[in-house]
């Protein structure tokens, strides 16, 4: 709870700092404030026996929300550390950027700890409205404008579906409260109102839009490509993880007993998402666009835990989202550095990087291996948990499809590694500032550490 208050007050402080032209103090204040929020979240860990819904049943801070808040906050800290010197190039009003990122983080904390559909809606909107602004912060860059408009129109459109679904569920169950809806489902095993089912389907549509699952993914590549790289990093890691956390929380607590109704739908969505994400990623020349499509395919893997809903789902989504977020942060950090030197987003820009920057090439290799799911990296453990969860429920076809897709994805992830190590190109050494070294090194160490000792975080949410 304290976490949410700190994260909501901090951006207001930052806006005042911006008003009084204290540009140098912005980043330190942000990081310190977020570390305090992180500490507050960690302190709330394992108070499960006293975790009751607060504010008239609006929010519930249990271990689930603490775990996802902590991952979101850590990822945001890493991304903000990469942004030192980055926003200054875009405009002079940098206090606003930090403030808006933090506002959207506040929305994310609400999203992972709601206990009432009202708060789900409010959290998603706080996060989305902030992101519309962030996607378009390069006011004179046409790609950024376009990405903001597309994101805005698609986001508002999907909110409409989500709301209609919520309204129908309210109409049949008479409650917005997660417990109330669960009780309705449990007490009417035979005669659930048809409009309740319609509501569930519309909520699936709305949430799949938000997390970028096919066939509602078409905004993702454009928005991710047009937005500034670090904002894309934020959108494809923190926001995606939070979207799945919210998705799972709703389905785990309310719709578990009618899984026979919605799981075929989600299964089809998962399979389409995997194929579209991976096969389209094969054809991309731009590294950034390739990461956008790869984020669609990772949405497909994350959906596994929801299709195979069970006690272990929370743990596997947590694992996978952590592994994916950390590896993606490395990839986007490396992209920002290489782009500053070569001025291009293309994979060719990485040619011969290993000869001049062995450290950068190494961490990017770790990140690509983790995204591809090679053993001894966190990504492998994430995929392992997802697949074993699905196998426990005898979803063989899905696992076979997913393994085929994992093999396809190795092809495009390894293209980057091959470009770095085996292609030669005339290039100067990329200057890596100290804080980049810290973030990239830290993320690589975490990726390998989780890959070697998965028990570090795997047992947290069971």
């Amino acid at each position, binding site marked *: 709870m304290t976490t949410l208050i700190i994260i909501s007050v901090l951006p207001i402080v930052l806006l005042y700092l911006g008003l009084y032209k204290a540009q140098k103090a912005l980043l330190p204040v942000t990081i310190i404030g977020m570390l305090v929020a992180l500490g507050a979240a960690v302190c709330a860990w394992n108070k499960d026996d006293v975790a009751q819904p607060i504010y008239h049943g609006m929010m519930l801070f249990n271990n689930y929300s603490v775990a996802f808040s902590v991952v979101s906050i850590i990822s945001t800290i890493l991304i903000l550390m990469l942004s030192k010197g980055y926003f200054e190039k875009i405009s002079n009003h940098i206090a606003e950027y930090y403030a808006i990122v933090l506002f959207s983080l506040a929305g994310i904390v609400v999203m992972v700890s709601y206990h009432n559909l009202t708060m789900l809606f409010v959290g998603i909107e706080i996060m989305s409205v902030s992101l519309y602004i962030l996607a378009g912060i390069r006011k004179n860059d046409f790609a950024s404008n376009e990405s903001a408009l597309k994101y805005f129109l698609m986001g508002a459109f999907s909110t409409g579906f989500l709301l209609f679904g919520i*309204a129908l569920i309210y109409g049949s169950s*008479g409650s917005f409260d997660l417990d109330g809806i669960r009780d309705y489902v449990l007490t009417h095993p035979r005669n659930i109102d048809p409009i309740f089912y319609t509501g569930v389907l519309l909520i699936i549509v709305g949430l799949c839009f938000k997390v970028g699952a096919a066939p509602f993914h078409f905004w993702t590549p454009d928005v991710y490509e047009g937005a500034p790289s670090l904002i894309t990093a934020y959108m494809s890691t923190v926001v995606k993880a939070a979207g799945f956390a919210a998705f799972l929380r709703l389905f785990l607590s309310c719709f578990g007993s009618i899984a026979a109704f919605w799981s075929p739908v989600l299964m089809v969505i998962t399979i389409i998402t995997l194929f579209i994400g991976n096969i389209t990623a094969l054809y991309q020349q731009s590294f950034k666009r390739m990461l956008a499509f790869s984020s669609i395919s990772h949405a497909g893997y994350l959906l596994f835990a929801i299709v195979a809903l069970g006690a272990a789902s929370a743990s596997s989504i947590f694992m996978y989202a952590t592994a994916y977020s950390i590896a993606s942060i490395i990839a986007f950090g490396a992209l920002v550095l290489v782009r500053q030197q070569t001025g291009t987003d293309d994979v060719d820009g990485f040619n011969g990087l290993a000869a001049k920057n062995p450290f950068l090439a190494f961490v990017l290799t770790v990140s690509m291996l983790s995204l591809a799911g090679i053993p001894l990296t966190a990504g492998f453990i994430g995929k392992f948990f997802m697949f074993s969860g699905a196998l426990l429920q005898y979803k063989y076809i899905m696992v076979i499809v997913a393994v085929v897709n994992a093999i396809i994805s190795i092809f495009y992830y390894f293209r980057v590694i091959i470009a770095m190590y085996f292609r030669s190109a005339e290039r100067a050494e990329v200057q890596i500032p100290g804080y980049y070294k810290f973030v990239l090194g830290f993320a690589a160490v975490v990726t390998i550490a989780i890959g070697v000792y998965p028990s570090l975080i795997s047992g947290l949410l069971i």
Partner: protein
Amino acid sequence: MNSVANTIQAVPLNHYILLSALIFSIGVMGVLLRRNAIIIFMSVELMLNSVNLLLTAFSVYRGDAAGQVFVFFIMALAAAEVAVGLAIIVMIYRNTNSIDINVLNRLKW
């Protein structure tokens, strides 16, 4: 207050559901078919307002205020969205002198 509720309940609930679904579909079609950013935006508002209508009707039929409170949340957040959305549209207009979304094809769909 009671008379308002009675007036609303004079129409069967199914009619409200059908009307809302119809308005919602008009909004969805508007978003998918129109090319003008402002019109698309208006269609989105139509979708949100059909939800408001539906929530109000359910709320009256159930005698539960929660649905009407939710409507206020939707109104407030829709207003926030309008502020940001119109700003984005103005920004686009300044750069391209157009609000037709067909000019926005620099990035592939």
